[in-house]
């Protein structure tokens, strides 16, 4: 995950790029000619302390290497934003950004 987060007053514009193939289950592996089973990011959350401030829930209609842009409010310098995604297989990635 790559995250760009800029604090402006109490607002944070977050831009995020997650690395994930987001397999729909409808494409074929060019080598084996078999369908690649569906596996995509289900949820992507952002917590500050233990408070959930963002949750995105996804299906196969989200592009490969998901991009998100949104604005958090009520934030201050020193806050630690904890981003986490979970996919269908249960794989996860966590990344923290300190404002």
């Amino acid at each position, binding site marked *: 995950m790559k995250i760009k987060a800029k604090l402006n007053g109490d*607002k944070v514009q977050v831009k995020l790029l997650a690395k994930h193939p987001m397999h*729909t289950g*409808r494409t074929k592996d060019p080598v084996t000619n078999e369908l690649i089973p569906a596996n995509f990011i*289900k*949820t992507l959350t952002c917590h*500050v302390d233990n*408070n*959930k*401030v*963002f*949750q*995105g*829930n*996804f*299906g*196969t*209609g*989200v*592009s*490969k290497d*998901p*991009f*998100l*842009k*949104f*604005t*958090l*409010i*009520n*934030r201050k310098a020193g806050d630690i934003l904890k981003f986490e995604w979970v996919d269908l297989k249960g794989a996860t990635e966590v990344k923290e950004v300190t404002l």
Partner: protein
Amino acid sequence: MIRRNFLKNISAGALILLTPFSLMAGWIEGAFTTTDMKEALNLVGASDLEESDLITLKTPEIAENGAIVPVTVSTDLPNVTSISLFVEKNPTPLTSQFDITKDMLPSISLRIRMGATSQVMAVVISDGKAYKTTKEVKVTIGGCGG
């Protein structure tokens, strides 16, 4: 003992039915796997939809490439708890659903996949009611050199 548990289960069930959608947030498997748009709408709590001009849905008129279509949804509706994005002609119409917390603005940009020219619908749940706006996005199949 069995009777007590039975009553407990009944009241728990009733509680779930009475709980506003916002507290039931999370990844709703059925909504993301159904091929039926109406069913997907129901599952995200948007069975009763009203058109709203307070939702801004920014999409390209003609997508450069259906694999990566940049979209932005924002709204001036009050007390938003959910934003969802549907592509009517996609195999599974619900692309994404966002639980909007009090710690964020009701606005989201993302990139979606579109298999063909289709209506794209943004659904916003505000004060427990569901509102929508729709835009058509054209998807071309590569022309010469495409």
